[in-house]
């Protein structure tokens, strides 16, 4: 089993609230959706309430612009590759604002984690 980690805090000392950093099994991913021209969301089952979800909002380049119209599709490819990866460490970081880790076609700024 591979576990997925995401963190939306950019400053170490800002940690302190619920749903800033989350981890869940790769098998708990529910969907990947385009939400706006510049954001895509990965939804996973929430651990706080199994009826609810964790939403990872990932910012990307504007798909309404000719030069970047494929960025959502490319970001989905990045996400699926990360979700299905067989990392020997047992986890894959989807994005970590603090440590500058992200998917290739993602923009870290304003990417968020919300657990309902």
């Amino acid at each position, binding site marked *: *089993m*591979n*576990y997925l*980690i995401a*963190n939306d805090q950019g400053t*170490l*000392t800002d*940690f*302190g*609230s*619920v*749903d*800033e*950093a*989350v*981890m*869940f*099994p790769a*098998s*708990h991913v529910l969907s990947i959706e385009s939400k706006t021209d510049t954001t895509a969301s990965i939804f*996973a*089952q*929430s*651990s*706080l*309430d*199994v*009826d609810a979800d*964790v939403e990872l909002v990932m910012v990307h380049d504007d798909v309404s612009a000719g030069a970047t119209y494929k960025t959502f599709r490319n970001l989905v490819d990045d996400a699926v590759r990360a979700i299905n990866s067989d990392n020997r*460490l*047992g*986890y894959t970081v989807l994005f*970590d604002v*603090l*440590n500058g880790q992200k998917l290739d076609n993602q923009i870290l700024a304003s990417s968020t984690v919300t*657990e309902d």
Partner: protein
Amino acid sequence: MSLIKTMNAQEKEVYMYVAEDATYATGNQAIFKASDFIGATSAGATSTIFRFYSQDNSRLGIGGDPTVARFELTHTTDAQIEIMKAVATAMANPHGGFIVIQDDLGTAFSSDGSTLGTAITQLNVAPIASTGTAVSISAVAINT
């Protein structure tokens, strides 16, 4: 002949042991299975919660939401991500096995009042990536 698959996450199970106080009172120790893991989240500057499907029949969710069991680790300030990574690596062991996540056994296990044990963990937690600060776990709280 068809076989019923009884584990939904991995063939060999990882069992994680936690004990939340020095007296080993009833209900203060628990073992969680990696295949029951639902998710983890930061819960404060010094704590991270790990949630699992409950071991009793309430996990079936009949008549309401399934109940969730959990343990909460108290650790070095701002080390949530490093703690998550260490637990993930432990849970992902393909050979299965048993690991002590946190055992708070302290001074109370001695008939003469002397110290016999100390809090231990078998997790290998890396230093905080952005600062190099060493990470330790100081306590665990169980809710099953």
